[in-house]
């Protein structure tokens, strides 16, 4: 490569030396977008481009009219008149005061570039737009014809097809992220017809594994993770969104619908649950729960992230710089940014600790189960209450402890209605005042009365909930004062109450306060305000009635906030108060009470498991935010208000009313949007060939890389857009091509002419993704679970990695099936992502990751050699090998075929056969070592000689580390 680079430089140098003043591309006309614009963008636009703050000398070179505007018999660019074109004079000047770009910019145009500009001016300086902003027009021909043409230009031809087995493995890894079995490959190899190939393609595209594989690409873009990020990095439930992505991909949801649901599912008419789940796409932004943070600061950061992610994912443009100033290279101004921002600035979420707004996502089974648990609680509560009342009211031998009083009159000081019920309780209905006084007149039979009981009983609210108070938002009550008067003819005697006690009192609101003569204090029961409560009071002097008598009971409830009793019952007792007990002291009720506690715990635990997923929800019309420009990107320094608008220049913008998120979604996938189909087609191509036609998948703007084959890119883009935005169709088109099916072996000549396979001159050959590396190892060893969906799982990772501040969560290695789920389901903690994945270039989900740049490092080797995941896979593969036959050669061959799929060449397995034999020999001399090795791989010798089995574990470990195994070829 050093040589190549050197040669590249030398070539330029030779051009300079041998062809001074000669246009470099004399054979064909200079093309503005391809040849001129890159020079202008890179060297001129920072100061003479779209950014009004940086613009120098009031000169713009990014707009044709301005660039060709004559001033004093000269213009920056004067068509056909190089001598009157100031740009040339400045570019060739040696005067530091005049030369452009100026020395302090550290930019320099080469003589070759100057010649290109000169030639272009000579040819009339025809203007144009940056290539990616031009409409997508489908070129004539087929995919293969376009590639063949490009190959022929370089004197190359299409490579022969890869072997049938290689094609099956390639297809399977590309489409579902898992290897085929050797049997599947052999079946195809027997009759490798086009029809059979196509059938295989459909089979893979229709596999549920398809969605699991391609979801990973999307989740990188969606910055999906299972935590909220930053310091505390607490957990967040978003897996229903991940499952939505998998399902939508498996259903081949077209890109336009996919876009609409994720950006604006909540705004669709009568959105389905799935459409609202889809909006979690933009709730994958991070939250900062660090103590002392300004929620508005991080809300704004999240909204900006949504803007940047949207434009980058769909259109391959970077909005980031326009936050602070107009884009220096692409036509996005500072105003444009905040107008677009205004569209997204109207959702409810605000960096809240609870991630609100959230939506419950419950399965039918879960719903049934929750109802069952809820019913059980309700039933036990009712049983317990009856049992308590019974136990309190009657002792052994039917001693009557309590008798409800007969109420002859019950009135509210306010407008509430008090009505006696068959069970002698008083139900309160009608309008509830902020505070109230209930006055009851009751009739008592002759007898000796010793005590009074007040029961607060739960009543139902219209919403089905129940509570002992009348305020649905806070169903508590405060009995400020309870007084009892004996109406003895004309004489009224206040009866003194003492020894107050209650089954429960709220902290600071003891039952004694209900008889202390102070209406500022009282008895209350929060947080247990949805269950029956009991207060007992002894009469300081027992009341002896020789005939029927009348009492007046007054319940003053002066707290306010409608904290008044909803239903209650008053009872009297005639026995020694020392015998009277509170509900919790009644032994008869204990078993029921324990059952109720257990049932409540079960319900609570179950409810905690039900997913509450963060979603987008629009602010009500009267609470919409006013969006202003943030000066230099600072949200505390706001400028002029702006109205919402889409970006100009990329397809038609809707007329009329201010655009919302629905309009953004429609505009992104409008057929006149030149970027979306190109960006997406390029992205898919990149996954299948290892590199995009535009290498900078993240940047289709003027500083991005140019397409290596523009016609091919436009052909694919048009195919995708015009074919109904079907990802499966696009994939099918590509994988059925001869281009895709080429053998991947390379030659010196190909290395020379197409070193990075960008034409492409051969089949793609590159290392598998982090997730595929692990999934493949689990698959060939037979460990892989095919369970789909649900909460994330925790396969083994080294202890002690999770040491986030103020976050008590721990990683617990899964056992059983969850240990071997597909990597897609591995818990992703943003500040501590799963180490083996990041080592293989996966991201952390913190920000949108457009592509992963592949690396090849020693740390990767350590993972596939020593990570318990791969050791366990090695033990399982060893087991498959030893049970496959008796001969070492055939066992090795079996293992290799499982891993590589292709038939082996004679003698190919020899190094591994020798390895197995040598290792067995060595381990035979130290059985403990063999046992230790098997144990560290969690293997089972299964009655075999441990030295022998351990040697197979080592051999399997080698197979799982083969370059060819880790590579898709």
């Amino acid at each position, binding site marked *: 490569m050093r040589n190549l680079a050197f040669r*590249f430089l030398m070539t330029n140098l030779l051009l300079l030396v041998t062809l001074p003043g000669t246009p470099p591309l004399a054979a064909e006309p200079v093309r503005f977008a391809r040849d001129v614009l890159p020079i202008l963008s890179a060297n001129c636009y920072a100061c003479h481009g779209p950014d009004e703050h940086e613009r120098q000398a009031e000169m713009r070179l990014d707009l044709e009219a301005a660039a060709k505007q004559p001033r004093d018999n000269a213009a920056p660019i004067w068509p056909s008149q190089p001598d009157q074109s100031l740009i040339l004079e400045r570019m060739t000047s040696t005067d530091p005061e005049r030369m452009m770009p100026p020395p302090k910019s550290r930019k320099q145009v080469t003589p070759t570039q100057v010649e290109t500009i000169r030639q272009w001016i000579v040819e009339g300086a025809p203007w144009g737009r940056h290539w990616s902003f031009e409409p997508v027009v489908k070129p004539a021909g087929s995919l293969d014809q376009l590639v063949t043409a490009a190959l022929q230009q370089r004197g190359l031809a299409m490579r022969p097809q890869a072997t049938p087995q290689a094609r099956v493995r390639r297809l399977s890894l590309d489409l579902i992220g898992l290897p085929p079995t050797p049997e599947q490959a052999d079946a195809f190899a027997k009759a490798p017809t086009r029809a059979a190939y196509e059938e295989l393609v459909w089979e893979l595209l229709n596999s549920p594994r398809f969605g699991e594989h391609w979801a990973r690409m999307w989740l990188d873009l969606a910055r999906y993770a299972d935590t909220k990020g930053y310091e505390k*990095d607490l957990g967040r439930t978003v897996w229903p969104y991940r499952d939505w992505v998998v399902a939508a991909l498996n259903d081949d949801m077209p890109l336009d619908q996919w876009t609409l649901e994720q950006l604006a599912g909540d705004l669709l008419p009568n959105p389905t649950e799935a459409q609202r789940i889809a909006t979690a796409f933009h709730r994958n932004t991070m939250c900062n729960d660090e103590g002392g943070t300004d929620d508005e600061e991080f809300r704004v950061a999240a909204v900006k992230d949504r803007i940047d992610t949207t434009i980058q994912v769909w259109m391959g443009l970077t909005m980031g710089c326009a936050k602070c100033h107009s884009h220096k290279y692409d036509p996005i101004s500072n105003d444009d940014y905040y107008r677009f921002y205004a569209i997204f600035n109207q959702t409810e979420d605000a960096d809240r600790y609870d991630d609100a707004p959230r939506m419950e996502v419950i399965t039918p089974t879960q719903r049934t189960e929750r109802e069952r648990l809820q019913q059980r609680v309700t039933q036990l509560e009712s049983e317990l209450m009856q049992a308590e009342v019974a136990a309190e009211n009657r002792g052994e031998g039917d001693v009557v402890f309590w008798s409800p009083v007969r109420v002859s009159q019950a009135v509210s000081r306010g407008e509430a209605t008090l009505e006696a019920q068959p069970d002698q309780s008083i139900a309160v209905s009608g309008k509830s005042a902020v505070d109230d006084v209930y006055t009851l007149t009751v009739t008592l039979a002759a007898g000796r009365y010793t005590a009074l009981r007040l029961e607060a009983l739960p009543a139902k609210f219209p919403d089905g909930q129940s509570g002992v108070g009348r305020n649905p938002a806070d169903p508590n009550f405060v009995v400020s004062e309870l007084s009892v008067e004996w109406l003895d003819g004309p004489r009224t005697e206040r009866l003194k109450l003492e020894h107050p006690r209650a089954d429960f009192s709220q902290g600071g609101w003891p039952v004694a306060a209900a008889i202390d003569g102070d209406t500022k204090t009282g008895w209350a029961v929060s947080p247990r305000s949805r269950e029956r409560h009991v207060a007992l009071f002894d009469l300081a002097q027992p009341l002896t009635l020789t005939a029927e008598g009348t009492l007046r009971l007054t319940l003053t409830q002066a707290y306010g906030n409608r904290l008044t009793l909803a239903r209650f019952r008053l009872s009297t007792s005639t026995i020694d108060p020392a015998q009277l007990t509170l509900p919790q002291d009644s032994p008869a009720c204990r078993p029921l009470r324990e059952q109720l506690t257990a049932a409540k715990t079960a319900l609570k635990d179950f409810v905690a498991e039900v997913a509450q997923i963060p979603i987008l929800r629009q602010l009500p019309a009267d609470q919409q935010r006013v969006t202003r420009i943030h000066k230099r990107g600072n949200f505390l320094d706001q400028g002029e208000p702006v109205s919402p608008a889409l970006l100009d220049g990329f397809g038609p913008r809707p007329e009329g009313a201010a655009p919302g998120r629905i309009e953004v979604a429609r505009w992104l996938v409008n057929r006149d949007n030149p970027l979306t189909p190109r960006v997406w087609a390029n992205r898919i191509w990149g996954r299948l060939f290892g590199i995009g036609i535009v290498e900078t998948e993240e940047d289709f703007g003027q500083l991005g890389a140019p397409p290596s084959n523009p016609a091919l890119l436009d052909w694919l883009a048009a195919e995708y857009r015009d074919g109904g935005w079907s990802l499966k169709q696009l994939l099918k088109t590509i994988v059925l091509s001869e281009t895709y099916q080429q053998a991947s072996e390379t030659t010196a000549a190909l290395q020379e002419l197409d070193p990075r396979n960008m034409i492409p001159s051969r089949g793609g050959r*590159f*290392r598998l993704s982090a997730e595929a590396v692990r999934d493949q190892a689990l698959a060939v060893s037979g460990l892989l679970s095919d369970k789909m969906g649900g909460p994330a799982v925790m396969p083994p990772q080294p202890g002690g990695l999770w040491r986030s501040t103020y976050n008590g969560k721990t990683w617990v290695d899964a056992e059983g099936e969850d240990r071997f789920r597909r990597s897609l389901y591995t818990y992703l903690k943003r500040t501590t992502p799963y180490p083996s994945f990041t080592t293989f270039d996966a991201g952390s989900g913190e920000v949108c990751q457009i592509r992963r740049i592949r*690396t090849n490092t*020693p740390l990767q080797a*350590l993972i596939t050699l020593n990570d318990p995941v791969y050791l366990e896979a090695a033990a399982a593969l060893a087991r498959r090998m030893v049970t496959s036959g008796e001969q070492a050669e055939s066992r090795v061959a079996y293992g290799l075929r499982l891993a590589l799929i292709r038939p082996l060449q004679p003698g190919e397995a020899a190094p591994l056969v020798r390895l197995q034999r040598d290792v067995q020999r060595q381990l035979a001399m130290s059985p403990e070592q063999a046992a*230790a090795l098997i144990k560290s791989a969690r293997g089972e010798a299964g009655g075999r000689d441990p030295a022998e089995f351990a040697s197979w574990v080592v051999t399997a470990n080698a197979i799982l580390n083969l370059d060819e195994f880790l590579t898709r070829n």
Partner: protein
Amino acid sequence: MEFLNPGLQQIRHETRRHFLQSSGLGLGAMAFQSLLAGEGLADRLPAANPLTPRQPMLAPRAKRVIYLHMAGSPSQLELFDDKPELKKLHLQDAPASFLEGKRFAFIRGVPKILAGQFAFGRQGESGQVMSELLPNLAKVADQLCVIRTVHTDQFNHAPSQLFTHTGSPRLGGPSIGSWVTYGLGSLNQDLPGFVVLLSGGKTPDAGKSLWGSGFLPSVYQGVQCRTNGDPVLYLGDPAGMDRGLRRRMLDALAEMNQAEYQRSGDAETITRIAQYELACRMQVSVPEVMDISKEPQHILDLYGAKPGFVSPAESADDPRSLYKGDDPTFANNCLLARRLIENGVRFVQLYDWGWDHHGSSLGESIDETLPIKCQQTERSIAGLLIDLQQRGLLEETLIVWGGEFGRTPMMQNNVRSELKKGYIGRDHHPYAFTMWLAGGGIKGGLSYGQTDEFGYYPVENPVGIRDLQATILHVLGLDPHAFHYTYQGLDQRLIGPTDEGRVLTEILA
């Protein structure tokens, strides 16, 4: 290294493309001119391996960096910035000028002024003002360039740590260590180029992103070396796998992979073979360099290090209550830092957690916790400087010490407003705080910048985080303004998109 790595295809192309076409070393100017001048390009570019050492753009003053970050942010008013005026106003209400238009993390309403809690003295020939909490560091006062006027624009931990180390308060940028390794390569063949060591029982608030490579290729990310368990994740062979078996296995693997290369012709395969060999060497070299038990006793004593010590604080849910002055974890890390740079590691980053002394709960006070944290660290830091100097390494190693911001001259008042022993604390203060530099290229004994009488704002020579970043790069021979990586349509630089950052030439030797 060279012969082992003819490949690394993707990365090499990636890196090379950026170097050739878009970095400050690009074809446009410098590289081209240097070629014309007959200078070999090969030394400048990551020709074969992205970690191959490269000549810097400018004459370097230092070759490597040890960056000591006290996560949570120590109080400058107790350590370096003596403010007698605060004593006079102790426990009086803070003036309105301290509060108007300010956002604080925790302070609410009108807090009280809090006097410095410890005594100061002048140290060394240079007379550096330092606290009684730093008796050992005082002995190397003449090596330090103390900057008391550092300011930042973030006042929460995670964003501020990110800003300090990646140049952006949001996630996604490469850390200084990654930038430096990208620009200069590694100086060794069997260790990572950028190593991170942690102590204090917690990861710094912004987590692993602080040593992430961001948009740079992941080969430049920091490798966390642990003092407990495998020093590098998955470095140790499993039980039962001895070196002999591993060697045999790697030989068979290499043979198989060679055959694969014959078939495919893909140089990436050769790279993979080389990377497995490198991994195998790391399995030996990393534990060796991480093993401080062979250090002579006088060196261990110099740092206060104890080989093999595993602090209970490292696995506690709340380590702060376990802080004792004699915990040698940080000391061990300082000694490791020396061993690592001695063995050619380019950038060693230490994070010590537990410096967030708000005084709102136990184990986070100025009066009780800060002295413990100083006791845990200052002797080791002094030891590190002395040790490096004795070995002639100090002059080519840049040492940086600091937190992510400073602490307020006012007492934090959101939990309690009266002084209570063990609960005296200060809130986050981004406007002026102290950091110091020492070693390669730095003027020792210099006191740079002055704050006002309350230590609230700089009044002379303010130093922004971007200035510090620019200076660090400059000292290493990287032009902070030209050194960049093109990503997302911008020439991304450590010092950010604007030119506000400047090299602090006044503090350079």
